[in-house]
Every structure is written in structure tokens, then in C-alpha cells.
């Protein structure tokens, strides 16, 4: 019996305690209500300007300090943007730098996440190639950028990371950038005999390869 009664007693004690608290609170509220209302205008809080994120040059990035000295020569700049590391490299030193990024035991960038490109039409070095690398060891993602002119051939990194095979084929397919040392450089998304490179800025977005259409599709004359 005593076991059953004990919790009841406790709960009753809690209830009474709760009641007294409520009473005290209501008393406080009444006291507050008796005070005359403040009629002063609310003072506006000073607006804190949000810092606009921007590219900042960095000298002491831990990743790029560990690079081999021979390779580090080709690094043009290291930047930070919202905790993302961006490294711009000259095209000549790209391949050696990529090898070091993977094989350097302190870095170990063993995963090539993506290869893509940008078209700065009108610039002397028209294309910008972007490589996203991830290191499972450091848990870090870095971005390697390099510029290439329209007639320049970019060294393929497919011998460093296998996944570059298809990623570089995609860049070749849509931008027409050629990669030297690629095992199988042909179109991957568009038909093999397509003319033109659709992601170039001088390619009309609606332009369809009429020569390809006329040779592959039987376009019906829609009945009037």
C-alpha cells in the first residue's frame, strides 16, 4: 500500500506547488499592469551591415603550403571565398600539380569530384577549367582553376583519376576543349556526328544541328 500511496502524495505535492507558483505569477502580472504604460518611441536598433562575401587572397592556406616546392611554382594565386579554397594554376604546371595533390602523403586528394569549364568569350585565354578535388584524409574540398586559350590543348588528368575520363569527355562534348593523353576522347552526351559545342557563348541556345536532324530524323509534315 505504501508504495502505491507514495506517488499519489508526490503528485499532490506537485499540484499544490504548481498552484502557488501560478498565484505568484498572477500577482506579478497584476503589479505590472498597475504601472503606467511607457509612451516613449521605440529606439530603432542600429542596422548591422551584412558582410558581403568576397574573394580574398590567402598566403597561409594549410593545403597549398604542403605542396612540393617544384610544383608550387606554377601556383598563380590562392584565394578564399566563404571557406572555399580556390587555387589558380598555370596551364603548363597543371599536370604535375595534380599528381602532387594526389600523391603527396600530407594531402592525399584521392577523389576528383568534378571537371567543368567556363567560356569567357573575348578573353585572350578563352576557357577556364575548374577541377573540384576532395581529400578523404583531410576531409577537405578544394578547387583548382586554370585558363586555356581556344587553340591550346589541356593535359588530361585521366591517368591520375580514372573518373576524369568521362568528365573530360563531357567538357570536350559541350565546350570543344581538347585534352592531350586522354584514352578515348569523343562525345559523351550529344550524338557522335553533331556539329558545334552548345555550351560555348557563341552558340545559340536554340540552335539545333539541322544537318544532323535531316540525316537522322524523318521530320513529318504535320497535316493542316
Amino acid at each position, binding site marked *: 500500500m505504501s508504495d502505491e500511496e507514495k506517488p499519489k502524495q508526490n503528485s499532490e505535492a506537485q499540484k499544490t506547488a504548481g498552484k502557488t507558483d501560478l498565484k505568484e505569477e498572477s500577482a506579478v502580472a497584476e503589479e505590472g499592469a498597475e504601472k503606467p504604460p511607457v509612451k516613449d518611441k521605440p529606439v530603432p536598433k542600429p542596422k548591422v551591415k551584412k558582410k558581403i562575401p568576397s574573394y580574398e587572397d590567402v598566403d597561409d592556406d594549410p593545403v597549398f603550403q604542403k605542396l612540393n616546392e617544384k610544383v608550387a611554382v606554377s601556383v598563380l594565386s590562392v584565394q578564399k571565398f566563404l571557406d572555399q579554397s580556390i587555387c589558380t594554376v598555370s596551364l603548363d604546371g597543371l599536370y604535375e600539380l595534380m599528381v602532387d595533390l594526389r600523391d603527396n602523403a600530407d594531402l592525399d586528394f584521392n577523389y576528383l569530384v568534378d571537371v567543368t569549364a567556363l567560356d569567357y568569350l573575348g578573353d585572350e585565354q578563352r576557357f577556364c577549367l575548374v577541377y573540384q578535388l576532395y581529400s578523404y584524409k583531410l576531409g577537405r574540398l578544394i578547387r583548382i582553376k586554370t585558363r586555356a586559350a581556344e587553340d591550346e590543348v589541356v593535359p588530361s588528368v585521366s591517368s591520375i583519376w580514372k573518373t576524369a575520363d568521362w568528365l573530360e569527355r563531357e567538357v570536350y562534348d559541350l565546350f570543344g576543349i581538347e585534352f592531350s593523353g586522354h584514352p578515348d576522347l569523343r562525345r559523351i552526351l*550529344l*550524338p557522335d556526328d553533331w556539329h558545334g559545342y*552548345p555550351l560555348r557563348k557563341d*552558340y*545559340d*541556345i*536554340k*540552335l*539545333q*544541328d539541322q544537318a*544532323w*536532324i535531316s540525316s*537522322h*530524323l*524523318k*521530320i*513529318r509534315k*504535320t497535316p493542316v
Partner: protein
Amino acid sequence: MGLIENRMEKNVITTTVDSVFNWARKSSLWPMTFGLACCAIEMMATGASRFDMDRFGAGIFRPSPRQSDLIIIAGTVTLKMAEVIQRLYDQMPDPKWVISMGACSSAGGPFDTYATLQGVDKVIPVDVYIPGCPPRPEALLYGLMRLQDKIDEMTIAKKAS
């Protein structure tokens, strides 16, 4: 049907034959297992138990164009796929029908681009167009019923020229 088709004026024989054949054809459509984009997800939902396309006799999706008489173009048709669609359509035995499901296959949808065919009717004849992005399963079922109405009007009699 080739022997007696388009030979006689409309009479009691043609109408009787028509009603039998049309009833058989519209009640037992065999769609092809063919999906291209998000519309295909709605098409799968239509085939599954909740909406149950089998109620209309069109529930079994055949894995080969040679065993099907209906192709539902469910999704964006790229130029590269248009070539394949044309070949698949040619491989289907007559009589055959086409449902264009959704905005993309009917008119290109939002993809007015270098790679997208602006309407599948540029490469194959379409019987029923279903609007929507994607159309709900009810819309596909309604489109199927409209196709059945269309099949019901087929005739072996001489057509007015």
C-alpha cells in the same frame, strides 16, 4: 484486315465487323514499357494499384515494341532519343496508337533548347495529347479513355475521300 479494309461502302457487315474488332482492340491495349522523364513516374503510378490502369484493359506494359500496340511518350524527347522513338514506332505492329503525355512530349515544354525535339508529333503521328506537367494519373486515364473512344470509331469501310 488488309484484305477487306477500305473495299466496301458502309453496310451491315462492316459495322458488325467494326463493332467486334473495335471492342476487342480498345478493351485490350498493350502499352510499351517506355518512359523518358518525370511523366514516366506518373505513368508508373497509373499502372500501379491505386489508380490501376488495368481497369481499362491497358495495365500490362510489354517490354518489347513488337508485342505492344500503344506507346505512351512520357517525358522530354531529346533529338538523340527521337531517332530511337522513330525506330521503336516502326517496330510496333499495326494497328498502333500513340499517346503524347505531358507538355514536353507534346510541344517541348520548357526546354526550347538545342537538344530537345519540340513535340514528338514531328517524328511520329500522335493520337491523344495529354496536357500537364506532369499530368496526374487521372489525366492519363482520361486520355486513355479518349483513345478508346477514338478506336471505337475505326472502320473497315471505305472512307469518304
